[in-house]
């Protein structure tokens, strides 16, 4: 049973923002993460403000500048199946098609996928952990096989999204509406490490709503991909994943981004790997050196040391594959 709450279906973005500015108000769209959190008492809501009736937040369009604008209410399934996404941003299509299960992709929205809460079983369970305002991270001394190897401090979650690392690799940003007006936030600056604030995963303030994800026009020579490794053949969250968006010229990487999923409390951009590959052809030794560089600062916990060789292998393979694509 869900705890009781009031339910409001906002008729305009202004109304949604106004309603969401109140303490105890929570945003409702696809609901797949929210309802689980409410049911498990991860957090509480006095009032759910549904944004599902707002028509301007749905669908995918290409702007005059060639950028792709994805409404926050667009389902993950719609992103995965969109012809423009498949043709111009194959990494994003791949990532979206590997999110959760078919049912959850039909329900979950891209806005929700970017803003979902962590899946740490202590956070989701009956543990008053640091992220919920307690004094202990139970994962640190506990069952931490699925926790982070990079970027952890005091809290060791991994960010659960597959689309966020891909959008970050593609240089995307999000448009946000809030009580103080509208702003655009690069995904580079959207996610928050536990060292900066242990109780939030994004920079969103109370009342702020992600309305769109904006992906820049892919320049010539851009190739993108997403690779996700799971503990089982069917659907699951990533044990290790890598999103690539690289620009090639005459066989060499000119620039681009390497972003890891399942590695850190935020989608983790590996500048170490990027600095190895930029200017080079993706020959086997370059891919290997980049993969090793990506893991150079990894600090595994007691039970997740397997992630270091797993990431090394996955990054090496994916770079090689994209180099030959």
């Amino acid at each position, binding site marked *: 049973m869900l705890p009781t*709450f009031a339910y409001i279906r906002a008729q305009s973005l202004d109304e949604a923002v106004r309603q969401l500015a109140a303490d105890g108000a929570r945003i409702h769209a696809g609901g*797949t993460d929210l*309802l689980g959190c409410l049911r498990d008492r991860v957090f509480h809501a006095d009032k*759910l403000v549904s944004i599902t009736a707002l028509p301007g937040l749905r669908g995918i369009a290409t702007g005059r500048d060639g950028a792709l604008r994805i409404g926050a209410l667009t389902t993950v*399934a719609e992103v995965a199946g969109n012809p423009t996404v498949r043709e111009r941003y194959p990494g994003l299509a791949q990532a979206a098609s590997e999110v959760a299960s*078919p049912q959850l992709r*039909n*329900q979950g929205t891209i806005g929700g996928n970017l803003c979902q809460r962590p899946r740490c079983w202590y956070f989701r369970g009956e543990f008053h952990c640091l992220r919920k305002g307690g004094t202990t991270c139970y994962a640190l001394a506990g069952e931490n096989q699925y926790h982070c190897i990079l970027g952890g401090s005091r809290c060791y979650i991994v960010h659960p999204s597959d689309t966020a690392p891909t959008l970050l690799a593609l240089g995307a940003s999000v448009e946000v509406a809030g009580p103080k007006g509208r702003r655009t936030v690069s995904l580079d600056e959207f996610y928050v490490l536990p060292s900066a604030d242990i109780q939030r995963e994004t920079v969103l303030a109370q009342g702020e709503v992600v309305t769109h994800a904006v992906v820049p026009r892919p320049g010539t020579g851009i190739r993108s991909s997403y690779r996700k490794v799971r503990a089982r053949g069917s659907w699951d969250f990533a044990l290790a994943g890598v999103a690539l968006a690289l620009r090639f010229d005459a066989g060499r990487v000119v620039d681009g981004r390497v972003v890891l999923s399942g590695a850190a409390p935020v989608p983790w951009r590996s500048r170490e790997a990027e600095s190895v590959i930029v200017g080079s052809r993706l020959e086997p030794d370059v891919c290997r050196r980049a993969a090793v560089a990506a893991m150079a600062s990894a600090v595994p916990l007691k039970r997740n040391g397997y992630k270091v060789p797993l990431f090394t292998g996955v990054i090496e393979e994916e770079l090689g594959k994209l180099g030959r694509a």
Partner: protein
Amino acid sequence: MASRRPDHPATAQIRLDLNGEQTTVAFAPHKTLLEVLREDLGLTGTKHGCELGECGTCTVLLDGRPVLSCLVLGVACDGAEVRTVEGMADGPRLHPLQETFADLGAAQCGYCTPGFLLASKALLAANARPSRDEIKEALAGNLCRCTGYLKIYEAVELAAAKMRGDEAEPSEETLYGRP
């Protein structure tokens, strides 16, 4: 029952096209579509499983698409078209998927079956000739702990063939095991 705060209305009311019938139902606004179907509409064919989005047994078709009814708020379904397992048969005639699931032993304990039937129905509505991999992908969100899935895949393939009007019979091995 805990007392309600005054700003929490006691009931929500929605209209549904439920298995082809216009239906109006009132319920507490924090109920999921699954709870509304089972408790307020008496349609207990849709099963209550993990409540986490992992098992798929609560799958229904919402505006034609498979969704997990345990993660949908009833109040968010106003005006929607909902199909449950109760709406699959045509009067006394079972849906071809129901027939082949029964004939091939694709249902054992049966708890996951309604979810598999509806996910399969959505697949066949979009793709009359799915490959084995496409069936696996479409059913990836549904867990079965009895059958090992093979008979379910074969039942979907056989139903697809029947619905296309192809001559198709289950293999001896599917029906009776390896000699």
